[in-house]
């Protein structure tokens, strides 16, 4: 199933790789952003089906805060991606009702399993 996906990841290469892999899998990538605010804005603008959201983002807000605010207007599937240090945020993150909480480096097969593909 082809889905509209928004990627929020502040590291370029992992973001690019995700974008490439998911595109190859047939999904429409509606945007790749590096900050929470961009993510919120784009989520409101593009209304993606799913948002891959890194917890640690550039800027003043983190991924969890972004998800909390997005939840105010969107029911998109949120998949958190967390580095080891953000593991402790897991409980706070779960309050926003994500469909998955993945630990980086994220395995492509995990993403594919969650989001599906061609």
């Amino acid at each position: 199933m082809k889905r509209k996906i928004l990627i929020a990841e502040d590291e370029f290469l992992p973001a690019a790789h995700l974008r490439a892999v998911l595109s190859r899998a047939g999904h429409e990538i509606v945007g790749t952003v590096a900050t929470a605010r961009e993510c919120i804005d784009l989520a409101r603008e593009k209304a993606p089906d799913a948002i891959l959201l890194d917890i640690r983002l550039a800027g003043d807000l983190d991924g969890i805060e972004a998800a909390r605010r997005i939840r105010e207007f969107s029911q998109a599937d949120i998949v958190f991606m967390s580095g080891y240090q953000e593991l402790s945020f897991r409980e706070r993150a779960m309050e926003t009702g994500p469909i998955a909480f993945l630990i980086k480096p994220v395995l492509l097969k995990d993403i594919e399993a969650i989001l599906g593909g061609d």
Partner: protein
Amino acid sequence: MSSKRGPSTGFAIQGPAVAGLAYFLTQMLGFYFPDADKVIMGIWPPAGVGLAAFLLLPKKRWPLLALAIFIAGNLANMTIGRNLLLSLGFMGVNLLESWLGALVVLRLAGGPPRMDRLVDCAAIGVAATIVNAVTGLAAAGLGWILLRSDPIASWFSWWIGDGLGILVIAPMILAVAKRESVTRWLRLPSILEFAIFFALWAIVGWQTFDASPLHGFYHNPPYILILLIFWPAYRFSARTISFASLVLAFIALTSRAVSLGPSPMGGENGFARLQNIELFLAILTFGAYVLSTALAELRQARLLAEDRLAEQKSAEEGLRAREERLRAIFDGAADGIAIAGLDEEILEINDAGREILGLAKDERLDLHLADIVSPEALGRLGPTGAPTSTDSLVIALMTTRRRDGSRIELESRSRKMPSGETVSVLRDVTERHFERRLTELRIKLLVVDTNAGFEELLGAALDEAETVTDSVMSFFHMVGGNHERLELTAWSKNTLATMCSKKVEKAHYPIAEAGIWADAARLARPVIHNYYPSEVGRKGLPEGHAEIKRELVVPIIRSGVVVAILGVGNKGIPYDEGDLRRALALGEIAWDIADRKFTKSLLKETEERFALVFRHSPMPAAITRAESGIFLDVNNAYIALFGYAKHELIGRGSREVGIWVDPEIRKTFDGIIEGRSRIVSFEGRFRKKNGEIVEAFVTSEGVSIDGELHLVSQVEDITERKLASHKIQKALAEKEVLLRELYHRANNNMQVISALLDFQAVAIGDERLSQAIEATQNRIGALALVNRKLYEAQDLSYINLRDYIVDLLDVLSQGDWSHGRSVEIKTDLESIPVIVDTAIPCGLILNELISNVYLHAYPDGTKGLMEIGLRRLPTGEIGMKVADFGIGLPPEFDIERDGKIGLQNIVGLCSSQLRGTVHFDRTKGLACEVIFADNLYKARV
């Protein structure tokens, strides 16, 4: 009441009734012998019956008796048709006669007569003659008044008739009534004698009174009867005489002499003859009674005299025996016995007494009571020589001397005799006295506690040694310094005062240099020198020591070693065995005292040392009562730690003071209190006086003090250590986080590398290159998985190889390179933890082996099977095996030579990094087992 009175009433009636009947019958008999006027009867046996009845019955029965006799007599009179008035009058006189007669007899004989005393006979005689004569007057008068009979003849007939009745009948009844044993008469000789007498008596009687039917009219001289009556009087009792009289009376009164005459007694007519016979019989009978009783009395008197003689003899013998006994006691007594005369001079003393006082057996006595009895006791005995009524025993103790001058403790028990002499029992109580002194010393030793007390007691023991051995000096030395010298010297008071100068008081003597007075210590046996100045090798005495004339020194030996010596000296006479024994006993006590003193001071030192250790130990310590937690003592470190003054803790409970932050933790001590353990250790938090909290490690031990369980607790302040530990823990945690972050970062980087390769593969677009890149990506994935496992693991050094293989299979099975081939995987994996250095090559090898199975084992799309095993081999090595059942390798394929990069990697990794071996099995498909040891690398963290 009636039942009790019954028998007595019966007896009361029976007696008078029987008497009445007897009276009636004998009266009827009397009627056969009337006088000439037919008024008075010539023979009157009822008179005897009446008197005997009155004498036999008690006075209170007399009225009843009188009534019975009165009725019986009048009834009898009626049978002969006697004038009633006369009958009543005569019976009145008869009663008066019996009554008065009885009173007179009782008075004269002093009680009912038994016819065995002369006085009995005399009394009956008086009744028969005088009383009868008087009452006879009344009868005669009565006869004259009523019948006009001759009063003189009547009186005489009465007097004779009643007199004979009384003399014959009354004694007979009285003698028979006397309860006399007849058994002695039942022996054959007695019965024979009895029979012979009565036969002879009857024959002579018959011959005398012409009553015999065998002879003609012939009379014996009647006096033969008088001679004959001597026989029973001498041989038999009054009863026999009565019986003989009765027999003779019967013969005489029934004889022809009475009626026909002539009688041997003479008489003009029958009545006169009767009266003469009566008179004769009366005199004969009465005479026989008198003779019999006189003989009986004589016999009695003789017996009495014999008895008295025997008694006297036995008393004399008893006295003699007693004297002998007393003499034996006196001579053989264990105690000394001394007898002092009125002047208090000792008159006699027994052997034991001589021995006690040291006198020879035949030595002349030159002793005075004051030599053996203390003056105080003499005073209590009373004035000298004065006979005294006091018989009190005076016990006294005095110290005196024997003849040889030796000293004894003498106990005397003296009693002053009524004669004024004094008897003293003497006992040598020297030993007993000594034993008591020993016991006193021992008891004192039990209670003495102070150093001064011990010294005083030791002095007392030495004073006693001096006294009991009669010495003037005594000393005590303990043997010390490996048995080389005498030390810890003590002296008796007297020795210190008179014998030795101060200089020697505390000196230590080397035994080797000491004189023969130290021989007891050297030879380990008592030593007596009774002539010290003449002893060879006596050496000198310590300087300042007085001259020694005699000495006795005893060793005190413990476990075969001489530990002390006790000596006494300068007795007036030579020392003997007794002195030795006493010195030995006192030596033992002196040692006990000295030993106790020494032990006590040692104990005190030890206690003080321990107290010092407790007080100044750097480790805070407290002694508390186990149950209440009340402080008994705390040391300086404890005070310093908690900040309380000592008085703020002692006597208060730890809870009350508030030292425990968590009071419940005191339950830790329950184990000690309930006796399950002796020591407990625990960590707890305590509050200082200023409120600060102290973390401490406490070790408490249960000890019994005065029978009560106490806790000796040592408190180790671990607050600083705990803080340091917290810091280390924190630092460690930080480092751990850092390390996990590093693993994570490395993993992330591998992900980035993998992404870059992916971009490269997509950009090139070449199928084969893509595959090569994918294989590389898988290898990177295998490496990344190790890192991932590491930062997920609890332990940052070890990875469980089984979990790792499961995850790796999961990753590999979804790779694009599998090209949709369906391979079933069977695993048989043991849980084996390995360090990173082992896990990484394992992961790479497994990656190659599994890739090979997917890529080559089942080329034609058939469904395949792969088995993966992990096991610990018996050798301790690890075996990791991947096997397939596919096409296998071509027969000509040589792995070393023809193997591509994958196979070469396997062999290379195994040999170089794992130092293991690779085993291929090509029999069915391809099976490859890698065997390696996991001890090649050491854990890094």
